[in-house]
């Protein structure tokens, strides 16, 4: 497994598509962790393409490497080999600074536990995204307000995370992701800690990210809810992805 991005033969990838057009494109990605004296290969020559407006759900056993796949796809860690292109930009050769910029401009995350900043109110959780992007504060505030309104949280805008319910926190987390106007939204078990009703609401929001906002949405899920709404469901097994619902890891087929 010494494949490097430069020598990778793009025509050999199973989807047969170029990296230039997809929102997210993983080619020959390999990640291995040291495990005692050995090396445990978590992602092995993995290919994945997610288009704008498409919602892809990844399922798999615990420890199959789903989180590792998300950290690599979200440019939070460099793979040991392979190429990851975001919005047409190959990232393997980029500096950490540039990768951070691409994250800022193209990637947003939704976490299992919302992961809100404890000292910011609901609206400020969104505003800080604008602040990081260098947006004027009045503009950021107006956009944040509009997003919260759309999420049914206008009345909760001045509450701190500790004062919000689990479902509200998760919706604020999704609002924060929308605030970034991302090309790719990466969600790590976003419904795992919610009851069925709240879980359904969150899945609908993620679906709307793909449908209404044209965001490439990549979701790792343990439970059934997100899979039911997905364009494609892939299983991560032995370091590779396998199509589950018959559409294959190929071109998008919307349901």
């Amino acid at each position, binding site marked *: 497994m010494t494949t490097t991005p430069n020598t990778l033969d793009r025509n050999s990838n199973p989807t047969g598509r170029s990296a230039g057009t997809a929102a997210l494109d993983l080619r020959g990605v390999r990640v291995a962790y040291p495990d005692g004296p050995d090396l445990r290969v978590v992602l092995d020559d993995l290919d994945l393409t997610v288009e704008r407006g498409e919602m892809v759900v990844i399922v798999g056993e615990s420890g199959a490497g789903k989180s590792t796949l998300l950290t690599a796809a979200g440019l939070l*860690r460099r793979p040991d080999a392979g190429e990851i292109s975001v919005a047409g930009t190959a990232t393997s050769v980029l500096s950490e600074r540039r990768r*951070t910029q691409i994250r800022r401009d193209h990637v947003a995350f939704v976490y299992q536990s919302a992961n809100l900043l404890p000292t*910011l109110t609901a609206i*400020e959780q969104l505003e*800080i995204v604008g602040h990081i*992007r260098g947006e004027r504060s009045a503009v950021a505030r107006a956009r944040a307000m509009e997003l919260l309104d759309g999420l049914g949280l206008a009345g909760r805008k001045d509450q701190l995370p500790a004062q919000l319910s689990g479902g509200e926190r998760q919706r604020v987390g999704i609002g924060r992701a929308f605030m970034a106007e991302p090309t790719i939204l990466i969600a790590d078990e976003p419904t795992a800690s919610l009851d069925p009703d709240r879980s359904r609401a969150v899945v609908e929001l993620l679906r709307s990210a793909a449908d209404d906002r044209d965001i490439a949405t990549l979701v790792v899920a343990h439970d059934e809810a997100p899979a039911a709404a997905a364009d494609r469901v892939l299983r991560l097994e032995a370091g590779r992805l396998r199509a589950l619902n018959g559409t294959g890891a190929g071109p998008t087929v919307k349901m």
Partner: protein
Amino acid sequence: MFLAIRDLRRGARRFALLGSVIALVALLSTVLSGLATGLVTDGISGLRALPFDRIAFQKGADATFSRSTLRPDALRQFEKVPGVEASPLGASFVNAAPVNGGPRLDLAMFGIPADSFLVQREDARAALAGKPGLVLGEELQKQGVKVGDRYVMGGSNVELPVLGFTFAGTYGHAPIAFVRLDTWQRIQYGSDADGRFSAVVLSGGSRGIGEAADRTGTVVISKEASYAGSPGFTAETTTMTLIRSFLLVISALVIGAFFTVLTVQRTRQIGLLKAMGASNGYILRDGIGQMAILVALATAVGVAIGTGVVEILSRGSAPVELSPRSIATVSLALVAAGIAGSLVAFRRITQVEPAIALGAEA
């Protein structure tokens, strides 16, 4: 500093402890600064007030008047240097006992000729030129000493009246008493004075002074260098500087430790911000800004209280003195110490991996 300000406001309690410690350090630094300045003033203000540039001591005297004895020929050598004004100065400490009872006075007695350039005021010149007597520092007037009071100078039988008061300052923590040089010689040496005095003070000129010093076996030093000869001066300033330096080091360590713990606690939050696309610079600005606001606020509070304490102390007998400049120095030094102390903590920020935002092993 979007996050820093909100964090400070809503997490005030976690910052209160550190804020209090910094405020206390600032308070202590301010009071010590006041004491240091006050002690310096108390030690050398009498010498500082005299209008001279350089001073010649006997070789080996180490700027100490009691170790230096010069004779008139030394004075003449310096008087010959063009452009230089030279005056003999006799200086010693003396205990003065009032003839009619009352508290004794510890005095730093400066003997100078009535026509010396050191005596600038006409009335002082006239007072010294007349009958022998004491011209005392005005602070003694506040202590109840009056013109006409008579004192016997310790170690001699010389009895002198108080002629008047002037702004004279203090030397070696004792108020200055000006007497005419021949009176000083009578007190110091009795009838066997032989024209001796302690040092030659010089004003103006520069060329030829070194040669004159060589010829007379004297060492010429600057006015500022002569302060070190004031009893306790070097020890006091060294001690004060040492204590203040320790305070700064301690506050740097405390601030550094606090922000190190805070940074470790915030590791996940920092990872989250990085995942959101915040650069190291963005997060560093936030952290350093937060530290600077906290240190500045706490320092302001501490310095304000410290200034009040100095004000109260100055009404008593403690030699304290505080200038806007030393207040500014204290404040800036503390903020600088805070930044220095927290640099280590903030270095950790750059090392946080964004991947921990997803709970993954970094």
